[in-house]
């Protein structure tokens, strides 16, 4: 199972290890963990579009597998209310060599950030507010255009 959307936290080390277990060709695992930043933020709630989320993530992973020779992909995205320091997302990619693993991991994150139906709402002492999309995320996506 390569994609999960869940309220529960996840075990980064176990997920990365599981990705290459028993696969003798796996020489490289690139991964990314996104966390709730603190500062003025007291909590963050992740809303999503349940009927679409899994499908959108599956499509992103399928697209990455078409572009690169990958031995394993794992995507976990949490939803619900999270606190500063909590993990939000894990993307881990196994391949024979590091270049494919790094590129595919970045590709999946860039697509996830702009195409997967998640929305963040921050709580601060001053109240709640929806996080604005960042232009830099759209720019990041553009480098993968063919």
């Amino acid at each position: 199972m390569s994609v999960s959307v869940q309220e529960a936290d996840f075990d980064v080390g176990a997920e990365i290890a599981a990705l290459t277990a028993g696969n003798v060709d796996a020489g490289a695992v690139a991964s990314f963990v996104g966390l709730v930043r603190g500062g003025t933020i007291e909590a963050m709630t992740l809303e999503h579009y349940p009927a679409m989320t899994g499908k959108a993530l599956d499509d992103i992973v399928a697209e990455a597998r078409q572009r690169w020779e990958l031995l394993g992909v794992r995507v976990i995205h949490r939803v619900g209310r999270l606190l500063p320091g909590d993990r939000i997302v894990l993307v881990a990619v196994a391949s024979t060599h590091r270049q494919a693993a790094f590129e595919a991991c970045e590709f999946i994150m860039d697509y996830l950030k702009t195409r997967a139906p998640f929305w963040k709402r921050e709580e601060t002492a001053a109240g709640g507010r929806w996080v604005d999309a960042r232009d830099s995320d759209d720019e990041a996506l553009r480098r993968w255009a063919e």
Partner: protein
Amino acid sequence: MTVRILYFASLREALGTSGETLDLPPGVATTGALRDHIAARGEPWLQLARAKNLRCAVNQAMVGFDAAVKAGDEVAFFPPVTGG
């Protein structure tokens, strides 16, 4: 013959509802036309016309505002996504 419409995140809050079921009026055959049809109700629905970078999906796939809409479809409107 109806469509199911869903609203998410700040748009859901601004509209005060997470969705509705709507009879597809004659002549409304695209996501853009559906957006304009709903916005024409006036406030708070004008949000749909005003929203910067409104996004939409038909049957759980992101599409543009020229995408076809037909009876039985699930159409979602939402702001740019911010997960990850």
